[in-house]
């Protein structure tokens, strides 16, 4: 089945390549042709763990088509693998636009892969939904770009502000910041340092470390020497594991009230089940957790369908972090198309600027550069984890929302050592 689909894709792509001028010429008469949605996804390479987002796109497409399509036209996804490399992105998007004649574009994952496509969509004046790129549109300021992710305005600095709000409420005066030398972590740490300064905290330790560092004992000792009351960590999955283990092995001062912040990894099933109880007490950012304040029938329905597919494909069986927002991206595009009754980029963008949209992740309104008007990054505390069973994370109470206040389901338990032992 899969090979046949790939074969069809190959035939379609070849045909499209040969017939490109014809397709471009006939775009005007395309009323009953499918609406094409183009995206590049990282199926291979270092960002391959984000490929579960594709399930979100596909579920959305199936739902829309089952309901009769958009404006009476079927929706078709055109998807390419960027191999997690920014070098592949310009050619892929030119293919999507100039050869495949896509009506709507979804950006690649994250800021580094999206950066190469921003000047292109601005110059061609195209409509795009951004996928998890932090501050993705802050330089280009394209008026037809909309984030599906909940980073909120001024996200380069503010997206993890929730952590610092919590620290401030605890009376933290001294903070340590460490980050992996990769795009997302580096920006998180840079923004975090600015917020910490704004709150009058002293940064007693601020270092970055290379990706694939497997031993953090010397860093943890150096942090302990600085005697901080809060530790803000921006890390990637492999180092998140190493840091959590390192803290357990080396130990950390009892003064530390809040620990975590921007660690990638403890959102994914693989890491949650492999570390299990070692994660207790960690305060970390997230985009969705199954707490009563967030759980709705719509999003529950999404995960009920997501999980069996994910298990079959061997990707993250929980899928709380990325996949719902890939579905949201589809919903945003659908709302824009239906609301403006067209696939004209200007009309679609005008609709999204003027109206808020109901999605499985709640109601979303956009500012002039397509950020969510309101930041909705969660700071959750992991608690009461017993054993390595993954299913416990589907229940409320293990990932308690501390921030934002509107979604709060519990208070910070601290200090970290006490929360860790519980």
């Amino acid at each position, binding site marked *: 089945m899969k090979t046949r689909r790939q074969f069809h894709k190959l035939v379609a792509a070849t045909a499209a390549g040969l017939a490109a001028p014809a397709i471009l010429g006939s775009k005007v008469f395309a009323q009953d042709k499918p609406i094409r949605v183009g995206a590049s996804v990282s199926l291979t390479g270092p960002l391959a763990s984000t490929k579960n987002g594709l399930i979100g796109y596909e579920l959305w497409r199936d739902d829309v088509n089952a309901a009769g399509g958009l404006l009476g036209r079927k929706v078709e996804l055109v998807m390419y693998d960027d191999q997690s490399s920014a*070098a592949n992105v310009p050619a892929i998007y030119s293919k999507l636009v100039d050869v495949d004649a896509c009506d709507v574009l979804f950006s690649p994952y994250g800021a*580094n892969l999206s950066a190469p496509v921003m000047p292109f969509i601005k110059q061609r004046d195209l409509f795009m939904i951004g996928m998890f790129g932090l501050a993705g549109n802050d330089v280009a300021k394209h008026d037809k770009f909309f984030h599906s992710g909940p980073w909120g305005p001024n996200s380069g600095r503010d997206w993890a502000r929730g952590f610092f709000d919590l620290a401030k409420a605890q009376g933290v005066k001294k903070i340590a910041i460490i980050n992996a030398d990769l795009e997302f972590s580096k920006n998180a740490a840079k923004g975090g340092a600015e917020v910490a300064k704004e709150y009058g905290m002293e940064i007693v330790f601020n270092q970055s470390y290379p990706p694939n560092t497997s031993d953090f004992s010397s860093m943890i000792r150096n942090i302990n020497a600085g005697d901080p009351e809060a530790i803000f960590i921006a890390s990637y999955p492999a180092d998140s594991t190493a840091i959590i283990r390192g803290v357990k092995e080396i130990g950390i001062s009892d003064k530390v009230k809040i620990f975590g912040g921007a660690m990638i990894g403890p959102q994914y099933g693989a890491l949650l089940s492999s570390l299990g109880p070692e994660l207790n007490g960690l305060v970390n950012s997230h985009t969705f957790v199954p707490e009563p304040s967030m759980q709705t029938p719509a999003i529950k329905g999404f995960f009920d369908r997501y999980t069996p597919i994910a298990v079959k494909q061997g990707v993250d069986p929980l899928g709380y972090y990325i996949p719902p927002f890939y579905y949201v991206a589809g919903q945003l595009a659908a709302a824009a198309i239906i609301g403006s009754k067209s696939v004209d980029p200007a009309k679609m963008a005008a609709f999204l600027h003027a109206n808020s949209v109901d999605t499985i992740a709640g109601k979303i309104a956009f500012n002039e550069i397509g950020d969510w008007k309101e930041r909705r990054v969660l700071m959750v505390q992991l608690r009461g984890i017993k054993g390595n069973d993954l299913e416990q994370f589907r229940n409320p109470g293990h990932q308690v929302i501390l921030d934002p206040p509107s979604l709060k389901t519990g208070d910070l338990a601290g200090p970290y050592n006490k929360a860790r032992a519980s």
Partner: protein
Amino acid sequence: MKKSSLLFLAGVIIVLALGFLMPWLLRNPFYFFAGYVVLQYVTIATGWNILGGYAGYINFGAAGFFGAGVYLSAFLFTTFGLPLPLCILASGVFGAILGVLMGYLTLRIQGVYFAIATLGLVVVLETIVHNISGLGGASGMAVYGPRPPAWSPGPSQFNFTVMLVIAVASVALARWVEISWIGRGLRAVRASEDAAECSGVPTLRLKLVACALSGAVLAAAGAPYPFYTSFVEPVTAFSLVIGLNAIAMPLIGGTRTWVGPVIGALLLASVQQIATVTISSELNILFVGAVLIAFVAFAPGGISDLFGRNKGRARS
């Protein structure tokens, strides 16, 4: 001038003329995006082959030279607003200096050590870029390229033409090296370094010249890259894929003459570009791996060699 050189010159003029005309004839920008990547690899493969093919010294660090070119040109453009040709020139000079340094450190010993040292060059340069805040480190650096001149219809077409000029210049340089005294000397080095040394060939100096030229071409290949992606970051600038392709393309095409890397790069890079937008899965990389093994096993001389042999047979 020899007949073959006249033919080559005619070819160069035709290719360049096409390069300037094509953007006006072929309207679809996608071909220029994809074509840019193919030409970039023609340059990289050609540059690599000056040292790797002619002298037999394997450079794993093509990505190091390429990345150095990328970052230098991005830095010079964003900080000093240097015009594009000067950025390319500066990158080339920097690549040459880097090549001589590498060569001077390791070439006095066996070739294998050189190969391994070049592996390190990539890591060292990448680490340095990570630690210089002026270059953006891991967050990368946005580069909004110069406005394309009037003779080119758009930025993608302009980048394509620029890359074409660099590629043609590199191939001409490689061809000149091949037929000049340098090429003869390098072939002697490749055949037997000791014998060459004994018969009075200045082997070290020749190898250093080859290092410099190779480094210059590899770095120049990276110079327009910031304007192609509008964004540079260390992971892609120093990507292993570049180092891998730099070796694979000459090997597939044939390492003895300048034609080999050009054929190999045109072929493999086009296949990769097509595979990216058709197969689009892990199988893409699996395919490259399998092709490498197959060529080493069954056609070690590369395509140009197969072709040459067949022609020879047809004649006899």
